[in-house]
């Protein structure tokens, strides 16, 4: 039997590394990867805590819908990155500064 505590620690690790990737990387595609990590951390928690209740399945059902949302997010996100890349010829978020005050 796998202890819920250990799964929680693993999920916290996934969340923290996802946050680290989101904070430090300078490439839009890698930022999307960090976002997927965070969504997976939430999913792992939903499934692990669902095991505490013998005959309820709300957690696993919720995880299915989280996956649907994650797929939509990835599809629209990659399309947005492609669009931005075509316009600015870069996928580095820092160089997309057209709205920045030039002074």
């Amino acid at each position, binding site marked *: 039997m*796998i*202890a*819920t*505590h250990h*799964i*929680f*620690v*693993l999920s*916290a*690790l*996934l*969340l*923290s590394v996802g*946050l*680290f*990737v989101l*904070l*430090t*990387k*300078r*490439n*839009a*595609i*890698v930022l*999307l*990867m960090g976002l*997927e*990590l965070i969504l*997976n951390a939430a*999913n*792992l928690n939903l*499934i*692990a805590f*669902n*095991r*505490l*209740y013998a005959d309820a*399945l709300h957690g*696993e*059902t919720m*995880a*299915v*819908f989280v*996956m*649907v*949302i*994650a*797929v*939509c997010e*990835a599809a*629209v996100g*990659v*399309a947005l*990155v*492609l*669009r931005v*890349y*075509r316009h600015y010829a870069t*996928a*580095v978020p820092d160089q997309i500064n057209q709205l920045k005050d030039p002074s």
Partner: protein
Amino acid sequence: MATFFFYGWCGVIVAGLLTLAMSKKIIHAALGLLAVLVALAGIYALLSAELLAVIQLMVYAGGVLVLILFGIMLTGRLSDQPMRIESRHVGMGLVVSAALFLTLVVFVGPAFLSVAPTDKPGSLRALSLSLFSEYTLAFELAGILLLVSLIAGAVMASSRQS
């Protein structure tokens, strides 16, 4: 036995996370993400959530990752050099994420030390029934959301100027 496999998959996840967080080559980062997603599918199977394990493999490892690889392929063609991932504020990011991890593990984690998971049997049949009875509306709405995001993705990525 299950515990042994759990820690094996945990090792794969940690290796994948390290690759994703530290690699300078974007393809290596994507492969690290693939390792994490596949190992998570293994853990879902160990937690007797077989349907979610299969969905994880098909949707994440098969769909989202291919999408991300296409994104890498289409945004990396400016130069012949392999695309490098630049990092900045690494120290700050490390401090913030380590603080989040320690806060969760030290202050929230002990609440789950005493809870005992039930020995759930496989949930495929019950989960399918619940999706098509109790959650029918959410299921249909998810279908509409998928259609809308399909259209949005196609419109955003098409090169035709309107």
